[in-house]
C-alpha cells in the first residue's frame, strides 16, 4: 500500500519534504495558497555561520543547534539536498562543502553562505571585482556596491553601468529583464553592450552582473559572456523579485510534477479528524499523514491578533502571547517548538513553523529546513508509515 502525504506550503521546507517523500515512494499532494516567500530569496543555503562563530567548519559546533542530529545525519541530509538540486537542474558543487563561503549583496556587503547555485558569485576571500549595473534596474547600484565593498574589504573594485535596454519602461522589474535575457536578441544586446563598455577598462577583473541573466538558461548565458569577455563572470542577487529563488522554485516544482507529485491551489483552514485537510472552499483532502510547512510569521502560518495572541489558525493552537515586554526577536522566531503539536505522529510541523531558532540572526536557514524535514521523515518511519530510505529502490528518478 502506498502512503499518501499532504504537504501544506511550498517554500523551501515544503518542497524539500515533498521531494524526500516522493523519492521514498509516497503519494504526495502539495497544497499551497501562493508562491510563498521564495521570490524573496536568492536561492542560497545557509548552515552555521562559521565566520561569525569563528570556527573552521560547521561540524565543530553542531551542538549549538537546537535540533540534534549526528554529524553523519547532517552530512547525509546535505548530501541528499545537493543531489536533489542537481537532479532538478540547479547545478551546485556536488560535494558537501567544508566551510561557509562569501557571496555578495547588491549593497556590496559580503555575506556568508554554505551552498549556492553555480550562477551566483561565491568566493573564499575578497578579490578585485568589477560590478555591473543596468540603468533602470532597481537594486543594481554598482557605484554604491563598489564603494561599500572596497571600504569594507580594502580590496579595489570598480563600477560600470550599462544603459537601459531598448524598450525599457519604468514598470520593468528584475523578472522582465530576465525574460529579455532569455531571448537571443536580449543576450546579443548584453554581450555587445558589455564588450563595448569594457574596452575602456584596465585590469581584467572578475565581472559581477545582476542576477537577471535569463530565467531559463543563465549558465549558458554566463558561459557566452565569459567567452566573449575573456574573464570570469558571475551573478549577484537582487532583492525582490529575486530571480535566483524563482528559478529554483520553478525547476523544483517542474521536477516534482514530473515525479508524480500533485499540486493543489488553495488555502487550508483546518485539519480535521487528525489528517484530513480542509480548504476554505470546503474541499477536503484525505491522506495518511500531513506535513505543515506554513512558514511561521514570515510565511503566514502564524497570525498575531490585535490582543497579542500568536495563533496557528490551521491547528487552532496558540503558540505564544505578545505583551509589552515580549521582545520582537522572540516574536519573530515563535513556532510550535515541537514536531507534533497535535500529539499525533501523523502531523508534523517543519521549517519556520516549528520555530526554535532565528535564521536571520544565526545564518542557519537551510539547517532549520534540513533538520526539521529529516526529523519529520524519521517520525513517519517510526510510526510505520515509511520505510528507511534506500536510494536503489527509488521509484521516481526521472
Amino acid at each position, binding site marked *: 500500500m502506498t502512503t499518501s502525504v499532504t504537504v501544506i506550503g511550498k517554500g523551501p521546507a515544503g518542497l524539500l519534504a515533498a521531494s524526500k517523500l516522493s523519492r521514498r515512494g509516497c503519494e504526495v499532494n502539495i497544497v499551497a495558497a501562493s508562491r510563498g*516567500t521564495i521570490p524573496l*530569496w536568492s536561492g542560497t543555503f545557509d548552515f552555521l555561520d562559521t565566520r561569525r562563530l569563528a570556527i573552521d567548519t560547521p561540524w565543530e559546533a553542531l551542538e549549538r543547534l537546537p535540533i540534534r542530529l549526528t554529524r553523519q545525519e547532517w552530512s547525509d541530509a546535505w548530501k541528499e539536498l545537493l543531489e536533489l538540486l542537481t537532479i532538478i537542474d540547479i547545478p551546485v558543487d556536488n560535494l558537501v562543502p567544508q566551510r561557509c563561503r562569501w557571496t555578495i549583496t547588491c549593497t556590496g556587503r559580503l555575506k556568508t553562505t554554505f551552498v549556492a547555485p553555480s550562477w551566483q558569485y561565491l568566493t573564499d576571500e575578497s578579490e578585485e571585482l568589477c560590478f555591473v549595473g543596468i540603468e533602470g534596474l532597481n537594486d543594481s*547600484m554598482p557605484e554604491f556596491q563598489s564603494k561599500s565593498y572596497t571600504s569594507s574589504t580594502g580590496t579595489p573594485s570598480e563600477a560600470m553601468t550599462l544603459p537601459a535596454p531598448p524598450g525599457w519602461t519604468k514598470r520593468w522589474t528584475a523578472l522582465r529583464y530576465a525574460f529579455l535575457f532569455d531571448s537571443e536578441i536580449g543576450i546579443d544586446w548584453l554581450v555587445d553592450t558589455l564588450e563595448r563598455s569594457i574596452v575602456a577598462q584596465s585590469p581584467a577583473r572578475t565581472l559581477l552582473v545582476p542576477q537577471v541573466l535569463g530565467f531559463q538558461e543563465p549558465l549558458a548565458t554566463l558561459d557566452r559572456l565569459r567567452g566573449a569577455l575573456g574573464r570570469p563572470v558571475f551573478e549577484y542577487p537582487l532583492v525582490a523579485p529575486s530571480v535566483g529563488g524563482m528559478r529554483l522554485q520553478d525547476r523544483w516544482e517542474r521536477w516534482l510534477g514530473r515525479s508524480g507529485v500533485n499540486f493543489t491551489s488553495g488555502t487550508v483552514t483546518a485539519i480535521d479528524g487528525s489528517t484530513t485537510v480542509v480548504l476554505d472552499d470546503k474541499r477536503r483532502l484525505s491522506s495518511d499523514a500531513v506535513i505543515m510547512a506554513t512558514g511561521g510569521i514570515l510565511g503566514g502560518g502564524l497570525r498575531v*491578533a490585535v490582543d497579542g495572541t500568536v495563533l496557528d489558525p490551521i491547528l487552532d493552537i496558540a503558540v505564544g502571547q505578545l505583551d509589552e515586554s515580549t521582545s520582537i526577536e522572540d516574536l519573530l522566531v515563535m513556532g510550535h517548538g515541537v514536531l507534533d503539536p497535535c500529539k499525533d505522529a501523523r502531523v508534523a510541523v517543519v521549517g519556520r513553523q516549528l520555530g526554535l531558532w532565528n535564521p536571520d540572526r544565526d545564518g542557519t536557514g537551510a539547517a532549520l529546513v534540513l533538520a526539521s524535514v529529516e526529523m519529520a521523515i524519521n517520525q513517519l518511519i517510526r510510526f510505520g508509515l515509511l520505510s528507511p530510505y534506500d536510494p536503489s529502490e527509488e521509484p521516481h528518478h526521472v
Partner: protein
Amino acid sequence: MTVVVIGGGATGLGVAWDLILRNVNVVVVERGEIGFGTSGRFHGLLHSGARYAVTDPDAAKDCMSENTLLRRLAPTAIELTGGYFVRIASNDQQFEDAWINGTTKAGIPVKPVSVPDLHREIPGLAPEVVSGFQVPDAVLEGFAMMDLLARAIVSRGGEILRHHRVDTISITNDRICGATVSGPTGSRYIGCDAVINAAGPWAGEVAALFGVAVSTRPSHGLMVIFANRRVPSVINRLQPPSDGDIFVPHQSVTILGTTDVAQTSPDAPAPTRTQARELMALGRVVFPDLDSWRVLRAFTGVRPLYDFDGLVRSSRDLSRSFSVLHHAAATGPQGAFSVLGGKWTTFRLMGEKTGDMVSDYLGIDIPCRTRETPIAQKPQPKPQPTTPDPVICECEEVTRSQLIDQPGSLAQSRLATWFSMGPCQGTFCLHRVLALHAERSTNYSNDPAPLRNEREQGLRAVLWGDNARQLALQRSVRYQGLGEEWAEL
C-alpha cells in the same frame, strides 16, 4: 530689524511668515528637520472647531475662522474632505443638544444627516450609531503646509537654519541683542532685536535661555495609521473630546487618534502596545471591523499645552488656545517672547498675535498681512527626465528623479517624497535610496541602521495581522538578503 525665531514647526513658521510680511528680517532656528517635533506628529485634522464647541468655545471660534481662511490661503495643503460627527447609542442626547448649541454660537455650520445616509456614506460604521451631523472639517497636509511656509519665507529673504541650536542669548542693558547658534558647520552669532520662543513642548528649555521659567504641561497622544483610505471624510465621535474618537483620511491612509497621557519630558515617547490596543478598543466602537484593517504603524506626538491659570485638572481640560508672552512684563529681558500652547489649525492666528506684539515692541506700524497673502505657490512644471526614471519606492510611487531632486538629508528627502512611508515601511526601498544618496554625497555612509530603526520603531507597537508578517519580512530581507549588521530590535 532682525528677529530670531526658535522652533521650525507650525508655530515658528507661522510667526516667521507674519513677521517677514511686516518687512522684518527673520532667522528661524530649528534643531532637527522642519516639523520634527509636534507639527509632524498629529492626526492631520484641520478643525472646524466642532470638537471644541462645548468644552472650549474660544478655541472653537478660532478654529472655524482659521479653517475658512486657510482653505483660501493654502489650497494645495488642504483636502476638502468634510467631516462627520456621529453619536453612538451609549453617548447621551444631552451632550448632543449642548453641542448643537455650541456650534451655532461659534458660527460652525452643522447639517444633520439621517442614519441610513450615514451608513451609505461611511461603509463599516457601527449599527449603534443613532445620529450624525456634517461639519466643515478638512484634512491638513502638515508637511505640505510647512514646506509652503518655508519656501515662502525663504523666497522673501528669510533664513531657515535646520539642525541648529541656540546656545546663548546675548542681553545688554536688559534688552536682547543677539543669539549664538551652532550647527553642522560651526557656531555663529546673529545680532537681533528680539528672540521668539516657538519651541512647542520644549518652550520651557528655551525660556531658560531667557532666564525665565515657563510651566508647560506636555501630554502625548498616540495615533495608529492604517494602510488604506478607509473613511471618505473625517469621522468624529459625538461626545466630550476623548480618546480614540477621530478617524482622519490622509491621502492613501487613515489615522486613528488619539490617547492623552500626561508626561514631564517634552520628547515624544516610543509608542507602546498597551496604548495602541486601548486605542483600537475605542476605535472599534465606531468601526466594529477595525481589527481587519491593515495597520501600518503607530506614532506619538506631544501636545505643547500650557497652564494659563495655574489650575490644572486633566490635560484635556487645558485650553487648546494659546498665549503670547513678552517676558519683559514679568522678570525677563526686553525682546524675549514666548508663544505657548495652540494647535495646528490656529498657527496663522498665533503668528498674527505674536506679530502684533513683536511689532509693537519694535515700533513697526505695518499691519498683519497673512490674512490676505496666499501661502500657496503655483507648482513649478518639472522638466521631464531624459534618462530612465525607475520607481524606487513602489508603495508611494517615488521615482529616482524625485529623490535626486531633493538635496539634504535622507530624512528631508523622506518627508518631501514620502518614500518608505507605505505598507512595506522601507523594506524594499531604503537601501536603494541610501545608495542614491551615498553616490551623490561626499559624506558617504552605507549604514542603513538609523533609517531602519526609525521605521521599525513605529511598527513594534502595532504588530498584528499582516504588519507582523511585514516586520518578519523586513528582518529577513535585511539580514539574509542584504547582509546588514545584526541588531537586536
